[in-house]
């Protein structure tokens, strides 16, 4: 299915557990996954299934309890916070459900932020160009609180693409938006993704959004279930 050289993200025997008062709770177990460069992957699953935990591990925001994660061939599960930060700055982009724009910075400055952290040249020009692409050329100097949810998420998308990351993680990117705006955001996300040839991994409840991806994986009870149409329909029945 994936040739070894194309693989941008490789996960083997991944587990994550937390210690509660008297017992250990397994959040994820036996996760094995490989994602090719340029692929679009949807991680779907019921609430509490562990999909967001998985996303945070894949993006290097958290460390697993066991197993391996290799991002661009680098074993991020062995790295400390600082090393993972450096990896994120270089290869990773994010889009969050709550947009998470820096409230004290303008739209333009929010978009410039990752480019500056990655020390890319011409951060401002890049940011302006991207904001134009997401139809916010006239809102460059507006602060997040002066923008609607849809506008904020468009800023977040522009911010995610400014460093031309190898891999983009999106956590419920349309979760906080009405369906019309959500649709618009989806279009924008996939258009930009295509233009940049970025690998996209998104976590969502939204089936329509998941359907736009090339591949879907289902997380159920902390385990990865195969992504066949049959299983999906089974899950759908359970969810309903």
């Amino acid at each position, binding site marked *: 299915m994936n040739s070894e050289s194309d693989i941008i993200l490789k996960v083997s025997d991944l587990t994550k557990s937390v210690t509660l008062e008297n017992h250990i709770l397994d959040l994820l177990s036996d996760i094995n996954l490989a994602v090719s460069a340029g692929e679009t992957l949807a991680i779907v699953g019921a609430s509490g299934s562990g999909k*967001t935990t998985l*996303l*945070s591990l894949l*993006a290097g*925001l*958290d460390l697993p309890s066991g197993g391996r994660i290799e991002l661009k061939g680098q074993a991020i599960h062995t790295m400390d*916070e*600082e090393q993972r*930060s*450096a*990896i*994120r*700055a*270089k290869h*990773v982009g*994010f889009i*969050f459900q*709550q947009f*998470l*724009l*820096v*409230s*004290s*910075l*303008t739209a333009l*400055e929010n978009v410039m*932020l*990752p480019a*500056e*952290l*990655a*020390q*890319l*040249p011409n*951060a401002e020009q890049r940011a302006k160009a991207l904001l134009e692409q997401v139809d916010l050329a006239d809102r460059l100097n507006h*602060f997040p*609180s002066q923008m*609607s*949810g849809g506008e904020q998420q468009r800023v977040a998308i522009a911010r995610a693409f400014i460093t031309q990351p190898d891999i983009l993680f999106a*956590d419920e990117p349309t979760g*906080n938006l009405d369906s019309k705006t959500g649709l618009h955001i989806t279009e924008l996300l996939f258009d930009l993704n295509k233009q940049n040839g970025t690998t996209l991994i998104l976590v969502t409840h939204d089936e329509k959004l998941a359907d736009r991806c090339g591949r879907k994986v289902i997380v159920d009870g902390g385990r990865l279930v195969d992504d066949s149409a049959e299983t999906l329909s089974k899950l759908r029945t359970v969810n309903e």
Partner: protein
Amino acid sequence: MSNNVWIKQSLRLLGHELRRGELTIIFLAIVLAVATVFSLSGFSHQIQAAILSKSTSFIAADRVFRSSQPIEESILAKSDELGLESALKLEMGSMVFANDKLQLAEISAVGDKYPLRGELLIQNVQGGVKEQKAPKPGQIWVEQKLLDILGITIGENLEVGMAPLEVAGVIKQMPDASFSVFTSGPALILNVKDMPKTELIQPGSRLGYKALFAGESDAIEEFEEWIKPQVNETQRWYDIQSSRSALSASLDSAEQYLTLASMLGIVLAAVAVAVASRRYGQRHQPMVAVFKAMGASQRHITKLYFLHWGLLSAISVGAGLLIGYVLQEIGLNTMQEQFELTTRVSMMEPLVIAIITGVLCSVAFAIAPLKQLVTIKPLAVIRGFEHNTFHYLQMLPAILALYTLLHLFSRDWLKSVVLLGGGALVSIILLVLGQAFVSAGRSVGSKSGRALHLAFANLKRRAKENSVQLVSFTIAIKLLLLIVVIRSDLIGQWQAQLPDNTANRFLINISEQQVDSVNQFMEELAIPGSGLYPVVRGRLTAINQDSVTSDVSKEEDKDPEQQRRGVGRELNLTWRTNLPDNNEIISGQWYSAEEDKAQVSVESGVAERLDINVGDSLGFQIGSENFVVEVTSIRKVDWQSLQPNFFMIFNPQVLSDFPATYISSHFVEPEKVQSFNRFLAQYPTISMIDVEAMIGQLRSVIDQVSLAIEFILVMVVIAGSLVLIAQVQASMEEREREIAILRTLGAKGSLLKNSVLLEFVCLGLVAGLMAGMAMEIAVYFIQTQVFKMSASFHLEYWGIGMVAGATFVGVMGMISCWRLLNMSSVTLIRRTM
């Protein structure tokens, strides 16, 4: 791209946040702390220096050594060795002659350098007044009164002892002129070199030898340490502080008050910084998490925030210094005339103290929240943000910093420890009480209306934050009440000291024959007065058959300075049937008029120094006559009252047969002054001391100091308000979420407004009540320990505290939440989701 992105980002953040008002509370809190410290310490530094120079002029030196024997050479040699300036002065009462007339004069023979402090102003024959040092040998300066009595003018000769000396000028101001009503006559100054010619120094002459010293404070202190152990019972070493001037006492309490109030202001400003920086930490959490998720390293974040906070502090400290400087200038200009601030003292010390205050406030109170902030995990972008966990250990740097600040400002470790320890203890008690109140509120609330129920439910849910909030509200209100109460007590006490009809003229040397006409004149013109006090001069010779000299030697372990006063010199004795005003019997009983037994009432200070108790017998000598009386009461005398006061008051039976002169004090209204003076002109032997100018000076100083107190009160109120606003703001995000939820669930705007209002009003009410109680305890200690006033209770302020607390916290809370309460549901949801 260069690797100093953090600088750019930090500046950008700071610029936006400052413009958007997100840092206003922290900014104001630091500004306030710095401005308060700078203006007040600068101000009091300057005023202190002015007062000191003005008051040291009352003794014409920094320190004075007085002895009944000539000053030893070794003392002067030591002072020279330490680089001190010194001047000699010899004092005595003696008759002087001119035109076949004679008059008792207070003679001062002074060395060339006299006076070392203050101004000696002399009017010359042309009428010009000039500042002078000692007169040339052969010349003297005298008070106008002496010229009038003797009927001579400037240029004529006057015989002092055996020496005819030329009157070269009239004394207009003598820095160490005696304010005492018992001075023996008009002043006369001659050069000490003329003393041998006068032949006034004879065996048995009553002479006072003085050596005046002035110089750098270090040298003075070293000299003081050297000389103090050598001072014997016939000598005295003193500075201006030991003077009993009402002015110095008032200024002393004012200074104490200003220091205390400023310390409380600093505490409040520091609390505001602490609260605001916690909120700052919380508000920046998402920002840091996003930065980290985007790949910013810990180092990057630390540098970014170090610069951000550092610049914010620097800007705030700078603004604080500027505002403090302006306030200080305004204050000094207002008082310029009063204190004749001709030379400005260096502002270096207040400046350094103010800068340290700003830096300590911004570092120590923010270090814990900032540390938590920069170490936040990037995972928070997914998992959400938690409120800062609060460990009591985190308060350690803040407490240490607060102590340092208080100490730095007050230079009084005891006061700082008491204020801090007391504050911590009160906070803990209040925290426990607060939690109890909040819990109790829940059960009350559940039985009440919907808005109240919601309000109490909110209070209960945020029990921990609310009890912390309650404590800071309480402390803020308490400190405000404290400042208000002490201020009114203090100013009230000063004003009581100087009522409108305070005596402004003293008459002395009224002879027995003049008594009736003086009384008659005062009655005719309706001039109020103290009544006439007869004065007989006599010596205390024995206490319970022990002669006083042996008594003194038994007291060697006591402070030598306390041994001398009241013995070894003649006392002014009086008799009287009624207890004078401003005197209070503290033990024994005032004699009744019918009793024949010889009795005396002794002033409590003297009684304590000489170990005199009710029932003791005292031996006195008047002229050549000796007699013994029983002590039947001990009196407390208000020495600051402007009226004749006495150590010993006898019943009339004892003294009435001795020849006496009389003294009295009067309040002469301006329109009666002329008639008063005309009347006195008929009796040249009666001396009049005009203290009008002194009272005027005292009044205006009190007015100015009261103004300074109003100023600090305003500062403390602003600091208190800042704490309240910072506290309300700290809970804003959470409130926003709650209101959004309640709105979504269909809660009416009026219900939400009422519940928010009630929540704050309840908090304010409870805080006000607790503040009233805490204030009462604090006032008790401050009044009795710091100001040495009698304690008073202020139940009315408990009510004021509650009403003010409820109103203030309610209004501040509503103002802070108003925008939130009027937002549409959609906006609210959008903001909080």
